[in-house]
């Protein structure tokens, strides 16, 4: 039996992070929730995941910087990335994300079901289990006062 796909979520908005993580877990994914780009990268340096779901506009290490760092790391060069953004398509076109090699862009506000659908669509063709065993469901500690 295959292990559930492992999704890392990086979102600085705690309420949104909570509901995305909840929906993914309810759907059967293994979820690691992080509150910032740097927390996510800290996790990725030591662990492998099947997909990264990252907010674009985060303090410190942004979603863009996280994508860039992943593409420079041989272990995460091919890891699918979904970017969440609150910027409108008129002001931030999808092609701006192409340089980061993202698989999809989801604009806020979004339906959690749309997120699930996108994650499933991206993972289905070459479903790979997590290469490095991680805690079943772990939330990486966030920065102080971030909640």
């Amino acid at each position, binding site marked *: 039996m295959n292990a559930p796909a492992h999704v890392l979520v990086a979102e600085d908005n705690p309420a949104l992070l909570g509901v995305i993580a909840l929906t993914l877990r309810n759907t059967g994914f293994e979820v690691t929730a992080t509150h*910032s780009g740097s927390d996510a990268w800290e996790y990725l340096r030591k662990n492998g995941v099947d997909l990264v779901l990252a907010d674009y506009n985060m303090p410190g290490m942004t979603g863009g910087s996280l994508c860039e760092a992943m593409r420079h790391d041989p272990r995460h060069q091919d890891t699918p990335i979904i970017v969440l953004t609150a910027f409108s398509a008129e002001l931030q076109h999808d092609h701006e994300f192409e340089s980061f090699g993202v698989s999809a862009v989801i604009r806020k506000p979004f339906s959690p079901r749309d997120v699930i659908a996108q994650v499933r669509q991206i993972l289905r063709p070459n479903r790979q289990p997590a290469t490095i065993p991680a805690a079943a469901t772990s939330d990486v500690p966030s920065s102080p006062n971030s909640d």
Partner: protein
Amino acid sequence: MSPQAPTQTEGSASQAVEVLGNIRVPQSAGTTSGSPAPPHFQSLLHRAVAYQSATALVGLAVLLLGFLANGSLHTASGWIPPATAAMIASLCVALGAWAAWRTLKPARAVEQQLHRFVLSPVVAAEAVIPSDGVTPLETGWNRLVQHLRSSEEAHGLSQRLEVAMLKYRQRQGEQILNALTDGIAVTDDAQRITCANNALYSILHLNPESEVLLGDSIELALAREAGIEPGTRILDSDHLRHRVVREIACPRDNSSCTLRVCRTPLAAEHHSAQGGFVWCVRDVTQQKLADKMRDQFVNAATHELRTPMANIKAYAETLALGEVDDVEQQKMFCNVINDEVTRLARFIDDLLHLSRMEVGATTLQLQVTDMGRLLEETAAKVRPQMLQKNLQFEIELPGKLPELIVDKDKLAVAVINLLGNAAKYTPDGGSVQMRVSLPKDTLQIDVEDTGIGIAAEEIPKVLEKFYRSSDPRVYGETGSGLGLSLAQEIVRLHGGTLSVASELNKGSRFTIVLPVTAE
């Protein structure tokens, strides 16, 4: 010689009178009038009669001479001797000649002048001399001369007026061109400048007193300004018959500016030919900056609107799909939705207030306000927030605070924003102080905390709209980045200032200074 000669002559003169008397003078080209001959034709009529008299005298003399040739002249009173007849005849001839000369002299003078006009290549160069006689012909000629002279004077005046108007229009055109802030140039087909206004000199950093653009290639002049290789076309040469616009970046000392160059073809007299171009060069650096700031504003506002909406949608949909069974968790979800709606409403209110204040559309509801009471009430509103985080909240007010004429509701918003920020960014167990003092003619409100502080490089930006520190501790708190901007705008509308001093990880102090006007 026929004895009927005088009768014939007289008959001719009568016929002439008859013909002249029947003349109809054309009033305008192609039309004739039925009115009688005008006065100058009547004068000619009189001349003809005088001429007839002189001719009659000459005819009489000729008759006498005829009889003389026959040897005698028989009259009713008897025979006139030939010598007497000859004398009478001579006298008649002399009188006739004198009358003819007298009559024809002014006509001859006029004829000579008219002859000169006919022969002269330049009619206007010929002097028109009035006659000094008083005969009808001379009087008529003199009136004609007078009319001609007044016409010449009027024509000269008209020409001088036309030249003056032309010069005035040229000067006015130059003034209008030089009053424009856009650089304007007119070029010929080869794009050599034939006319340029002062603004173009200014945009190209040239001195119109010492440097001349006329005759220069405008392409070269613009390429020099933009630091582009000479010979590189600024505007393409394929669309010469259409208006072409391009923006070029020009390096400046420490920055760069953007020039918008527009070339419009001028219509030639003949459709097939090119009539040169009008070039309009506008410095759009400020406009570009404003566009960029507007985009940033829209981007930030959009982001701030979408973030709570994302939470509301995600939580509401999760609840609606029944993915949360636990009642406590359902309540928590509802609270999140409620908080986000409140946050959204506050953000929209702040944004509207700030926008209205910035464009001067907000009027302050000024009233005499007890500042001590206002600050006490404001502190009471944030006290629960302080207690929730176990913060030590202290207020220091002087014994007696003056009454100020302020918009108390708006000023309360400004102070609440400062106190709310202090509570938000001060860790549990920290302290917040509000101190009020009265330095020289002012009322000073200091809000000081022992919070996370602001990095030195971020201090100048914290009062900007939508600015939020990149400190993760700030991002962990909800906020739109509008509170401090709004506070600053409110204080500014009251004629005061808002300043900030801070040290990272030690705390911040925000200071409002309001003018105290003596009653």
